[in-house]
């Protein structure tokens, strides 16, 4: 099967998606191809089952939660713009669309720092959403337990898990309400180089 040459005209709303998410032209083409490959019945959108078919995702203990993040507000389908929007959260800072940047103007120091801070907040938000299932803005002890249980399966006893959950919540909880709010969460992660750990380098 020969490869097909395609350009941006093939992707509906290609330009607006590019501007919104910041993916480069080539990356967007790749993701479109990937979207089409996952959409086996050529429906034009992805359902939960399409994503569940990915073998390596099904073995990921957090696989189901990750799939959930593609379907906000209880929707059952995700179209290509939605797909790209979620993946854009994991795009590293450097992979900016070079066409929209002006190469002559040097980047002011402030804005670089701001950008990094935005990145950090974005990264934390992604992780936070995986913990906070009911979206109430806090990670309760119960939710912490649930995620832990997902990650270890049946290998750890309930008691050990509860200990771990209690300890973690205590360490992060500052206002003593027994749950970890988003601010507390970001504080405890501040020391780590989280942007690197959560971003995916796409080959040019």
């Amino acid at each position, binding site marked *: 099967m020969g490869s097909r040459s395609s350009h941006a005209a093939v992707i509906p709303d290609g330009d607006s998606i590019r501007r919104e998410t910041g993916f480069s032209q080539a990356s967007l083409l790749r993701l479109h191809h990937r979207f089409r490959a996952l959409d086996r019945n050529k429906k034009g959108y992805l359902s939960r089952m399409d994503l569940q*078919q990915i073998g390596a995702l099904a073995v990921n203990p957090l696989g189901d939660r990750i799939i959930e993040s593609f379907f906000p507000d209880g929707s059952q389908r995700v179209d290509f713009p939605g797909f790209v929007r979620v993946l854009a959260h994991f795009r590293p800072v450097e992979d900016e669309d070079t066409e929209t940047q002006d190469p002559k103007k040097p980047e002011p120091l402030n804005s670089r720092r701001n950008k990094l801070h935005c990145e950090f907040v974005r990264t934390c938000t992604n992780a936070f959403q995986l913990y906070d299932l009911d979206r109430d803005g806090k990670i309760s002890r119960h939710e912490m337990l649930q995620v832990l249980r997902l990650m270890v399966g049946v290998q750890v006893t309930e008691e050990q898990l509860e200990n771990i959950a209690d300890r973690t919540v205590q360490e992060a909880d500052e206002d003593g309400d027994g749950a970890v709010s988003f601010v507390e969460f970001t504080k405890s992660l501040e020391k780590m180089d989280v942007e690197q750990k959560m971003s995916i380098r796409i080959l040019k």
Partner: protein
Amino acid sequence: MFLLLPFDSLIVNLLGISLTVLFTLLLVFIIVPAIFGVSFGIRKLYMKSLLKIFAWATLRMERGAKEKNHQLYKPYTNGIIAKDPTSLEEEIKEIRRSGSSKALDNTPEFELSDIFYFCRKGMETIMDDEVTKRFSAEELESWNLLSRTNYNFQYISLRLTVLWGLGVLIRYCFLLPLRFKEFMSKHVHLMCYRICVRALTAIITYHDRENRPRNGGICVANHTSPIDVIILASDGYYAMVGQVHGGLMGVIQRAMVKACPHVWFERSEVKDRHLVAKRLTEHVQDKSKLPILIFPEGTCINNTSVMMFKKGSFEIGATVYPVAIKYDPQFGDAFWNSSKYGMVTYLLRMMTSWAIVCSVWYLPPMTREADEDAVQFANRVKSAIARQGGLVDLLWDGGLKREKVKDTFKEEQQKLYSKMIVGNHKDRSRS
């Protein structure tokens, strides 16, 4: 007006003559040598010139795309993500290390950031994963003009269809009357397969032919398309094992059964492993019967990797002769995605590709050792085949093409992670 008439008849005559000449040439150069297994260097020349044309065409296309300022769709064979080959443990340790300044022995058991590892891995697989890649046709880095040059396209397809038609004719005319003469039928089989091979303009290189399978053994090979069968059968005599197909394939299968003892199964029967094993054992123990040809992956893979072998054929205890088949994808993609299109469409695609170029390696025979079970033996054979053919040796199941993944794999991941966060705890509580 009437001046044209004598010209017309002249042209018709010329056409007639040229067609006859063409056909005789075809006969002489292709069918006769096919019968005797001799080949000319014509096909090698053909291959070389094709390669040159492809390289030139790719350059032209890239230049053209640059002028118009369009992005060319460049496929990557290795995926789009820059992956670091680190394990779960290493990655999580690194995530923790980058944050805390504590010494490593005091590392706490669980950190909120551990989740990052799983999250990122998950997103990466959504963008690109090893398995789904294997089930879509292998992507080429350069064009091979398969849907572009109309003129050549027409010419080649005509020639090939003619040849194939002849092959089918001869096969049926010979097979039916000769169904009681085993020697003749073997010979005819070989001949027919060779004709098929020529018809597909297949250029096959056989390596290590001294290791070819013998009677009473099982021949095991990786599977990309039904053409694998033709390729192997044109170089030796085999009994086939496979699932019964409907349609055109079914007709061919039934014709083959009349001439030679083969073993055909319904796909549902295959699930009853004992039945299958019994039939195979019976066949193998009869030393006069031909070696069985089995494709243990269970389905067609796109020829960049070898998937997990089903253990059934390895339980029988006969000698296994592994064979590695590797197609050169530049000349035509032999991969058959049976969930995408049926047999006839597939054959058409094969007929109209430039050529089918592949290499076949016969590996030395292997037997199951005393301390090995069937699964380990199967994996050993699989690694040997993968290594020889330069294919990636995957642990994944070919069944993933159609079904979901088994839970055992998820448990592996969970076990690894739990060791990290609880392993220390156990030591502490003991002391």
